[in-house]
């Protein structure tokens, strides 16, 4: 029920930041030093420790560009997910200070100061670990993937958004509803899922009521050249984000936004209602479905929802747990069998060594997976790039799950209005 993540300078061994989640204590300097030392020690003898597991904990080390090391310790989650989280954390660091700054490390104190901005982002990233505690309020977060919301109005918003994007002379913009991407331009979707996720978090971090104009580096697309990230609040819980060059000043952008979106206020008002259901109320799911997670592997986006139809009869406490179950199911069963390529443990530089292994595993393509527990059942099905994970009650027959999941998946992806 705890997680720690820390960043250490490779050269000096000095800690750059350390964040924690849950009831963990802040790690003392000596511990950080030892953890760093373990990793450093192996280097001269060609040995690089990647991770260590204990009964309940996972520890992972990862060094980036030979200049910083990020170390994570977490309970209850798999080492694969933890390693993936470290990548996200590093991306968050790059997002704020840029790759050059990290590489040069001219002034470590300045770097530390600058990185304060990304603490909320990192803290939020830590929420995406499935430590298995139900107190977590962001249990819908998934590592490395961007959450979206499927509103019926999405296709209408898309049209307006496209015209706004032209106004501000950019290609990257999106609308967030409750911090989830409702709609975005094509270029926005072409960003790395981690980038989309980080930008969404950034827009919502600290005060989401004021307009933001922050320089950001895109960890994958542009780690050395900064963009301007502008986030404006349209109505409450609805934000407009865009990436742009130095040209239009914030005032002009705000002006264009008002111009473009002033007629859409009603649309947004209804669209906001979609939360927390996250998919249109017009779409009727099978009554046996307690919750679902729909994921697109190529775009790295997902929508997660607990089916509210059940809420009236069942006690609400169990419903908050549903997202946790779905997420754990996704991490434990779906990532290793249905979306293998993205969650491999090795760094990409080491891929060639395990090539044969990949071949063998790649020939066997997982298409469905399920598990049955005493209290619930989960089933996931993959059709092309889309994976639907569904949470059922334990009374649903196992064979029926396959039919319901397939029907639901086809129904959800066929809806053109929600811009999936």
């Amino acid at each position: 029920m705890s997680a720690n993540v820390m960043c250490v300078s490779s050269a000096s061994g000095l800690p750059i930041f350390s964040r924690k989640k849950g009831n963990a204590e802040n790690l003392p300097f000596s511990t950080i030093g030892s953890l760093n030392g373990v990793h450093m020690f192996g280097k001269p003898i060609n040995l690089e420790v990647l991770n260590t597991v204990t009964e309940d904990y996972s520890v992972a080390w990862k060094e980036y560009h030979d200049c910083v090391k990020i170390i994570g310790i977490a309970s209850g989650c798999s080492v694969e997910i933890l390693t993936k989280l470290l990548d996200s954390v590093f991306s968050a660091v790059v997002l704020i200070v840029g790759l050059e700054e990290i590489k040069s490390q001219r002034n470590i104190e300045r770097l530390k100061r600058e990185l304060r901005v990304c603490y909320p982002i990192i803290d939020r990233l830590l929420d995406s670990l499935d430590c298995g505690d139900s107190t977590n309020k962001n249990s819908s977060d998934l590592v490395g993937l961007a959450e979206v919301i499927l509103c019926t109005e999405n296709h209408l918003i898309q049209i307006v958004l496209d015209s706004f994007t032209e106004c501000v002379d950019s290609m990257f913009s999106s609308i967030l509803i409750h911090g989830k991407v409702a709609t975005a331009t094509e270029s926005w979707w072409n960003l790395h899922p981690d980038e989309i996720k980080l930008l969404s978090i950034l827009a919502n971090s600290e005060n989401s009521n004021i307009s933001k104009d922050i320089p950001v580096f895109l960890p994958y697309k542009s780690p050395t050249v900064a963009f301007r990230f502008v986030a404006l609040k349209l109505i409450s819980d609805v934000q407009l984000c865009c990436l742009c060059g130095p040209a239009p000043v914030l005032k002009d952008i705000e002006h264009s936004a008002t111009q473009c979106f002033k007629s859409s206020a009603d649309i947004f008002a209804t669209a906001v209602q979609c939360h927390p259901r996250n998919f249109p109320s017009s779409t009727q799911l099978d009554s046996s479905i307690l919750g679902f997670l729909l994921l697109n592997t190529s775009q790295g986006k997902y929508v997660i929802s607990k089916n509210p139809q059940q809420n009236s009869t069942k006690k609400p406490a169990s419903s908050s747990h549903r997202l946790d179950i779905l997420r754990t199911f996704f991490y434990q069963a779906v990532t290793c069998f249905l979306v293998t390529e993205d969650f491999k443990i090795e760094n990409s530089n080491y891929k060639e060594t395990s090539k044969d292994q990949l071949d063998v595993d790649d020939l066997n393509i997982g298409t469905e997976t399920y598990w049955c527990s005493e209290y619930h059942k989960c089933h996931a099905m993959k059709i092309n790039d889309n994976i639907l994970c569904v949470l059922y009650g334990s009374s649903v027959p196992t064979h029926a799950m396959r039919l319901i999941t397939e029907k639901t998946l086809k129904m959800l992806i066929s809806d053109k209005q929600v811009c999936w």
Partner: protein
Amino acid sequence: MESQKLLPQRTQQNVTNESSEDEWSEGSSCTSYYSDSDESTIPDWEPYVDDYSGELLYIECHPFVTQNKDNQKPKETVAPFSKNQLRQSTRGKFLRLIRRRESKRHSKKFPKTPDANDNNTSKVKFQDFQEGEEKDVLLEIDQENKYNLSSNVSLAESLLGLNVSTLSDGNRVMIAGFSLDSKSKNERNIKIGDWLKSINDIEVNVQNLEDILQKFINNTDVLLKLQRVAGIDVTKDPPINELNNESNFVRELLNSKGEDEQLLSQTLCKHPVGIVYINTDKLSENSGEYEDIIYCYPRPLQKNILCGSRGMFLTLNHLLDDLVRSKPKCSSMMYKKRLAHVVYTQCDKNLLLFMLPDNRASAKEIMYINNEIIRLLEFSYETLDKCFTDELKLTQVDHFFSRFFARILSSGLWATAQQFVELQSLSVKSLQVSPHQFENVMPIAPFLNLPDEAKMQIDDALTELEASDYRDWNEEPLDCQRLFTVLGSVIYHSGYLLASHLIHEDLVDVHCFCRQQGLLHLSRTEPVKSLVLWKEVFPNSCNKNKVENENVPDGRRYLLVVGSAKNLLAVIMEAGGCTEPPEENMGPDAFYVEEAQATLAHIQELGLPELADRLLSLNPGFQVASPVPLSNKRKNEFIGSISLSKSATGLKESPRKNEVTSILKRRSSDQNFVLPYNSSTSLHDDCYSEDSGSQECCSEISDESGARSRRSKCEYDEDLSDNDDFNDGSQMSNSSFDVSEIRQSLLNETEDYRPIQITAGQENVLYHFLQLDTAEGILICPPESRVQSQTLQLVLSNFRRCCQKIHSLLQNTLRFKNMPVPEMSKSLMNKSLIAIKEHGILFECPYLEEKENKKNKIVYWVIGRLIYMPHPKEVYVCYNESVPQNLVELAFKMNIGVIT
């Protein structure tokens, strides 16, 4: 056994003939030893008993390539000595032995000679040098014989009149002999032992030989290119490693060759493998550089990766314990761009680190392997401390680890029955990825479910051995105390457990021991003439460090393993308690070894190995099927009902396949006669022909009468044992009727025994199943399929990978269920994982057998389920998704095993 290895009328090579005659006389002297009551008081294995520890490992093999002009040896020489003879012989011997023991049991008549195989020297050795003269031979195709393509004659034989085998690399084709009436026999340029390089300029190897011959079936002649591979007959004192009566594997088991091992040790240092045992107390600034290291392999210390980096692991071990109150289990790391894993085992103040590369053992696998090794070491040496501190045991431990690591790197954990364990080409092979392992690394013994009748016979025999009630053997009462009590015994055939009378923990110990020492592999791949192993062991149930049972008597326990052909009988015996007090380093006692051998012989005589072989040879077909895409299956459908046609294809293919490798051993001139003995091939030839309705020796005997006579005997037998009449209770009573009759009727009776089809639906859609009963230490699984298809291997490797995953998921449930209630709320476990009982994954994979047709796909489920009541069991199945299955039903049917 031996008769199958004879070659028909070999008259070409004089030397060979003589040599093999020697061989025979030697063989018969071996049998005569048993039947002789007086001359042979010194058993064959006696000279090999270790003087110091009393340990023994003795393996007598069947020679590799022997040739003989006697084409028919009576079966009696082959069959193990009859029990009656033995009982008579041992009767007097027992007393004498006891007397001998009283004087001085350990006085050795012979000094231990490492190469005591001298008398086996005159053998033909086919050394395969690449060089050697090449010959082209134009051979006429046998026109008469070419349509005689019955299943038991290979194409090479019917077309060319040649028997073929493989050279030692298992791939190149070797001329092994000529068929009776072949013209090629007169061809002077073809010599036995030649390497058949090509046919009509197409290069041949074992795999493509049949296919290539198929192409030339209509030619009148073919051009063979042969190469001499130097058929040198080794007659004068060859160095021991050129003797061909021991395979590499056996030699490796027996010898610890100092030089080789050092070389190997150095080679191993280059790979990310190793084991280090560290004293964490001695770790201080001012102690010597390697002072804390208690044991380390491979050596030298300076080159051992783990040794050099131990500080890292020690720090982690200590740090994580402080930090999160839980000990590290496994670390993954990159070593020179290779992923490797290190497992930690804390043992009081000492820490054991064990490392393997990822491509040979995944993080999950290495933890299982580590557990098994620790189990093995504790079984063999009581505790890890004793194992690594006793100087005298270290050579043994070294030898074990050298073999272990070399095997892991070269041929995977355990090769399948078709593969060889090879230690060559380490550098190339160690980079390849080994298939995933699951059931082979779990602490469970694969169980072969025999028909009840057979089980009863085995239990009977084992019980009698365990009782060791010899009172009525001698008129005068024996006034000496017995040396050992038998704690339990267990019998294996081809590596499958047939029956166990051991406490399950001990069974797992014995199984791990036999598996890791390679004995199971040996019995699966190379039927041996005789095997005797004796060793002091520390079974789990008696290990005071583990069991807090005060009742464990002070004593010593010994493991006795005797083997013959594919059978192994392992007995744990206790000295102390009610027996005579144990001695230091007690050696094997000839009497008890003979008793065990007699029991094994009795079981063999009853025909149980044949029965087991028959059951083992039924796959694919009855229990599991080979993956075939749906479209291909349709084609087969009109042949008959799907199960029949499948079993038929399975059976037809395999003799051919086997022939290539073992023709030399098996082919006999008069094929119709050779009575199957312990040969799976000939056995299933039988069942095949029975299936197809033709008459064969066994089936000729009327089933009814056979059954009846057997039944009546059985009743008689039961009466006897129920009687509890001491004068009559021993095995001697069995002599009143012929064991061979029981054998015959047992075999006939069980002829129609077929394992039930486990999956629902008409077709058999099951590819594999496992039932892990860790509480009992027993694994129920189908016998290894003899038809190895690429697709099947792909599916199975993936199946095992999933099993590992599912197993660890299900462990969460077990852990939570066993958790005390107050701890539950504090536990750090993911609450979503605490009650999972079933996990399944659906996979698609290409059908690899048809390269052109990529469209064909196999779609299959891998499902694992935890069955909690009455005690936890795990069931894993892998089946084609075309027919939906109910897992509970499958689990139920797995237990039924066989029905009539």
